[in-house]
């Protein structure tokens, strides 16, 4: 009388259905569903929030030259005007009303400006320099008083409400007597102060940045860049160069990121660059979902054993039906969990993403997701889950409680954490030989292959690693089924590892009475 390894689909479905409903109805499920994305979002959003809500840094400048600071202030204002003109130009007509009136008034004309026109106009607005020539710029220039007065009266808080990238939203220049600066810094009233030398164009000129906190170099770097630009322009003028020549000389080179693909070589879009990091997201999602539900299966099995339900089930069903049903039920729980996370994350980002200016990043990421990768993600999810479920299901059946399961779970967890450690190095160098070799090890295949998906691996890798994985899954399920049927009735001491292997080898169902 051989013991069957085939299953009855109807009974498998009954078990799966019950387990699914039982889990989805539990509070623990909803806590896990809501908490995980909340933690993930917190990790993503907290730095943005901190930056959003931390106010502008107050700084002061001691200008011994007498001319440098006003020039720098003009440059800063020109930068801000460029940003404001860009904002006005890019705001869709329907949303223009949400802009401050001074910006709303110029929005239609601003939309007509090209980049160079915008920069020229911004320069004109900041310095009251010669009027621009472009018709649209001229139209704005002619009504610029409202705009410049509004800008001059902006507080850092109000500026942050318009665009928190504006310099005046981040750094606030205050005027204090030079003698009081040190005390103001010590008292926390001033973040830092700069000293500009009397002869700033001299090679030996000494510029000083003084602050209580030298670790945050944000303000220093920004102000230094502004001063450098003005000083460079002045040095160029002294040397007899025109402003245009000076600008060309000062211009740094900018490397264009190009993505090499089978179709050739082209400038990488933001989405393509973001997509290079998508594998990390895939692996993380795979890891979290597989680990969660494989553990869920183990806990569910242990619970049925300790509740003595297992014996009732064994009297009504074949062990293979029970194991297949439980695995399917828990897999459905996992799919619901991952699906719920994705919906929640996308929903939350849609709601709050724009508030933290993550919208462009998110859409770039979403645009980088290809159907091909989704298909492989699903294939690896199913196979990876079945492989780890085979192991955790067998462990759950063999032991009587979580404590007894720990020694068996440790090596399993080590294997599962390995891809998590490797995911960033592999995503950075997906074509490395070592990454390729490791992806041929079946327990690592789902994670490593997804890690490598940034630079799509050759088809032969997909086929061979999947075939190996599939074969491993079949063998693992078969052996696990045997341990499962023998383990379920074993209420004595948990088996030694060797004993468990012998259970897997022998087919007859035995258990202590």
């Amino acid at each position, binding site marked *: 009388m051989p*013991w069957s390894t085939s299953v009855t689909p109807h009974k498998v479905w009954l078990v799966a259905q*019950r387990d699914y409903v039982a889990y989805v109805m539990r509070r623990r499920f909803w806590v896990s569903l809501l908490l995980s994305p909340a933690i993930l979002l917190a990790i993503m959003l907290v730095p943005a929030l901190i930056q959003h809500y931390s106010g502008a840094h107050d700084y002061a400048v001691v200008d011994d030259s007498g001319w440098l600071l006003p020039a720098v202030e003009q440059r800063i204002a020109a930068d801000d005007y460029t940003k404001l003109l860009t904002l006005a130009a890019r705001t869709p007509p329907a949303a223009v009303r949400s802009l401050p009136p001074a910006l709303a008034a110029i929005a239609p004309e601003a939309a007509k400006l090209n980049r160079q026109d915008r920069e020229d106009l911004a320069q004109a607005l900041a310095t009251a320099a010669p009027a621009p020539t472009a018709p649209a710029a001229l139209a704005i220039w002619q009504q610029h008083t409202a705009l410049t007065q509004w800008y001059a009266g902006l507080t850092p808080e109000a500026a942050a409400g318009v665009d928190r990238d504006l310099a005046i939203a981040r750094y606030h220049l205050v005027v204090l007597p030079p003698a009081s600066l040190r005390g103001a810094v010590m008292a926390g009233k001033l973040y830092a102060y700069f000293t500009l030398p009397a002869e700033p164009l001299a090679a030996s000129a000494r510029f000083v940045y003084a602050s209580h906190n030298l670790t945050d170099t944000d303000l220093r770097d920004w102000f230094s860049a502004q001063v450098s630009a003005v000083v460079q322009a002045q040095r160029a003028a002294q040397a007899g160069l025109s402003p245009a020549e000076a600008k060309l000389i000062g211009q740094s080179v900018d490397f264009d990121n190009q993505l090499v693909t089978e179709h050739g070589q082209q400038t990488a879009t933001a989405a393509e660059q973001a997509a290079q990091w998508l594998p990390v997201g895939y692996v993380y999602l795979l890891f979290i979902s597989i680990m969660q539900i494989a553990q869920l299966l183990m806990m569910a099995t242990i619970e049925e054993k300790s*509740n003595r339900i*297992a014996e*009732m089930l064994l009297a*009504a069903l074949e062990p293979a039906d029970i194991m297949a049903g439980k695995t399917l039920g828990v897999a459905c729980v996992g799919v619901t969990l991952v699906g719920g996370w994705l919906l929640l994350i996308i929903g939350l980002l849609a709601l709050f993403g724009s508030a933290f200016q993550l919208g462009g990043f998110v859409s770039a990421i979403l645009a980088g997701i290809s159907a091909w990768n989704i298909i492989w993600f699903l294939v690896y999810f199913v196979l990876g889950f079945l492989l780890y479920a085979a192991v955790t299901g067998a462990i759950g059946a063999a032991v009587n409680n979580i404590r007894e399961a720990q020694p068996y779970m440790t090596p399993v967890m080590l294997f599962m954490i390995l891809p998590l450690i490797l995911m960033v190095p592999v995503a950075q160098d997906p074509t490395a030989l070592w990454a390729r070799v490791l992806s041929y090890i079946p327990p690592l295949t789902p994670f490593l292959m997804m890690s490598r998906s940034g630079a799509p691996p050759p088809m032969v890798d997909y086929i061979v690693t999947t075939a190996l994985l599939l074969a491993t899954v079949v063998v693992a399920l078969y052996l696990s089924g045997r341990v499962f049927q023998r383990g379920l009735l074993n209420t004595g001491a948990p088996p030694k590892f060797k004993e468990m292997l012998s259970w897997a080898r022998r087919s007859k169902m035995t258990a202590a*009475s």
Partner: protein
Amino acid sequence: MSAAISIRDASKYFGAHAAVNQLSLEVPAGSIYGFLGRNGAGKTTALRMIAGILEPDAGDVTVLGGSAPRDVRTRTGYLPEENGLYKDMQVLDMVAYFGLLRGLDRREARTRARERLTAAGLGERIESKCNTLSKGMAQKAQVIATLLHDPELVVLDEPFSGLDPVNSEMVLALIKQFKREGRTVIFSTHVVEHAEQICDAVIIIDHGQRKLAGRLADIKAQAERSVIVDYEGDAGVWQELPGVRGADDAGQHAELRLAPGADTQALLRTLVERVRIRRFDTREASLKQIFLDAVEHERDAA
């Protein structure tokens, strides 16, 4: 009467230990059959083989007309020793679920579950979670779940274990009801009195082996009986009386041990002729004594 269960030389080993050792037994259909034995005697293993949970390593176990237990799961019901309930499930859902697993359709399972839980006095608890039930209630719910598909063969492992006298009576009444409904019931117990109360037949198992099996009346008839006699006068030599194997005489009170098959009526007639009888009390050997003798004998031999 045909056999509901037929066990032929069945053995079951766990490692080198034989939990059941060359066991043979025929259980007639429609009877109540008790499996008696000490803890660890092999009762549960035997019942699990009958329920199709375990497979014998040697020999044969067939049920309901020669079928392998696993092939007739929709016709058998098995109640394990300990309460197996899904703690978080509603009572109605849990009972109906086991009906589904045993082949009932969804509607039928729920209808029956509702009717039977209500009939058993659990009507108000059908929407409660199983972990809110008392042990007695849980046992009832579990019995209903086990029998929802109206099995012809009912296998109960220690159904009285941990129950108070009221709930024990309830289980006894249920078992009698199953018999009236024409089902075959086998159950294991180490409380011999329960078996004595309701069993048509019993098997005594020790160390996985059959010590004694058969109809309760036959077993008792073959066991040693005794008679308590209060008398006045001189009865003479007790051993010369018909059917008496030995006597313990205290003058006016004696306990006479009877030979198997002794005719107590003939003994009473003889005694009345010799002495004045104030009391003549026939004592059948109790199943407990028979059980202890069977198991003691084994222990002595060991």
